[in-house]
């Protein structure tokens, strides 16, 4: 069972929900994967011991100029303008390459091989019973989905996997959320929160994933998010009021469930409700 934690808007509390949910349940078959590879933060709260590290790259072409006849076929089949063929030279613009492999396949001289261009680091480890994995995109790198896919591949069948997604609704979020059994959408009751919840809710509808909503800082703002959820038939599974003590614990990187039996109960209950709504519940 894969549960994604997502939100259109950033900073609504995705990581807080993901980490506290994992810690509250804290069972042997639970994995937490942080798929926000641009700004991974869950490890700051979970504080896992990492025991595995691997560089992730995407395959980019290497041209053997001895074999190359400068026919230009590679450049012609490249949809991303990543190869330019000159009179006696071939330029590969590695940052533009999506690693599709088309150029190597179509080269009539078999002059193209591939090497891995590193885009980031994959790490995994554990915190108590929880297995943890995340990816860390290299600063300056634009291509995050292959790294997100690598993090997601760490999810194992027969286990409960909580996936912390990046903000937004475009390709990195789709990479993180696609194929999950349920999605928790974390929002706040403000015009920005509502606008971006609407986008996120359209996204998970398009991907055909059932969802529930968590309203964070639920007492700041207006009532339009709850109205929206009612209209859309989205269940509001939890409301979390603004609390300076919560904010202070968060600022220091301390998960609230470890500091408060009351919040431990709240997140246990949230997990029960989430699992109950999950379409993959039979696989638990």
């Amino acid at each position, binding site marked *: 069972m894969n549960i994604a934690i997502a939100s259109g808007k950033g900073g609504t509390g995705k990581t807080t929900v993901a980490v506290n949910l994992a810690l509250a349940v804290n069972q042997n078959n639970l994995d937490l994967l942080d798929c926000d590879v641009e*700004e991974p933060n869950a490890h700051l709260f979970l504080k896992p011991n990492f025991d595995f590290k691997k560089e992730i790259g995407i395959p980019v072409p290497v041209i053997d100029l001895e074999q190359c006849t400068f026919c230009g076929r590679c450049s012609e089949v490249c949809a991303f303008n990543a190869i330019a063929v000159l009179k006696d030279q071939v330029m590969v613009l590695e940052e533009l390459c999506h690693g*599709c492999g088309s150029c190597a396949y179509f080269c009539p001289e078999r002059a193209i091989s591939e090497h891995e261009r590193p885009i980031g680091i994959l790490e995994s480890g554990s915190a108590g019973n929880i297995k943890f994995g995340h990816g860390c995109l290299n600063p300056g790198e634009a291509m995050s989905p292959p790294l997100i896919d690598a993090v997601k591949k760490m999810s194992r069948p027969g286990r409960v996997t909580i996936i912390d997604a990046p903000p937004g*609704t*475009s390709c990195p979020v789709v990479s993180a959320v696609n194929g999950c059994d349920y999605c928790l959408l974390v929002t706040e009751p403000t015009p920005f929160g509502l606008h971006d919840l609407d986008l996120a809710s359209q996204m998970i509808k398009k991907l055909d994933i059932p969802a529930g909503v968590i309203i964070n800082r639920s007492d700041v703002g207006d009532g339009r998010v709850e109205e929206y959820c009612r209209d859309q038939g989205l269940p509001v599974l939890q409301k979390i009021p603004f609390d300076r003590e919560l904010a202070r614990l968060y600022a220091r990187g301390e998960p609230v469930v470890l500091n408060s039996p009351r919040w431990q109960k709240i997140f246990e209950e949230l997990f029960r409700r989430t699992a109950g709504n999950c379409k993959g519940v039979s696989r638990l």
Partner: protein
Amino acid sequence: MKTVTVISGKGGTGKTSLLASFASLLDNKPVLVDGDVDAANLALITGADILETHDFSASKVAVADPAKCNNCGLCLELCRFGAVAGDYSMDPVACEGCSFCAYACPEGAIEMRDKVSGQWFVSRTTYGSLVHARLGIAEENSGKLVTIVRNKGRELAEGEKKEYLLIDGPPGIGCPVIAALSGVDAALVIAEPTVSGLHDLERVLSVCRHFGVKASVCINRYDLGIEQSKQIEEYCLKQGLVMVGKIPYDRAFVEAMVQGVPVTEYTNGALKDEIVAAWKNFINHPAIF
């Protein structure tokens, strides 16, 4: 003309609210660009009278014709993006648009079709012209769309002889952020005083360094993490970065957002003074411009 991108690394630190406030302080109205094309929110504060609407089409998507397909399975074998299903139909969400399958198909059964992935707009607002966009749900190429709105903003600002082009950047450090930082004079990073905020600040600053963009820092809601605020200040001091201001937590931000106005138009108290001071420190600092 000076081009400034407001970014944060971490989402939800207050980029958009502060950018709208800065815009409201300027006598010579700036040109505004909402570079968060995934979840564009600036217009919710500034309002927007849409003057121009343009389609954004930057990619292609593979479409298979089952009548021509001979079920040879080559497309499924070659696709590295998992976009070909068992029945040789194409998943438009997973399709990267690389055209590999279309070139390779021995029956010519796969066609690459242009895909409209979003729209972009030029609007009039109380605080200056606004160029913004709406990327379609679950679409790609947000970096290209950011480049389009950024370039259009620059063209307008140069044409109208504006003093400032203000770009609201997306969260993260990936392709849309890189596009929002490209060719700008300075970045103002809105930092949140939390362990996540500090971690993300360091990462987004390394992106600025990577592309040679001068960055300054403003802490928002500094009083929700006094200790972490100190750490951010020490970090900036060590890195030789200018700290332009520390804005306190205030419910007025959300109240102003609910009213659809910049917080500087909503309140005249100490909060406004802090925002004005941060902006003045930023634009008047000799190390920045």
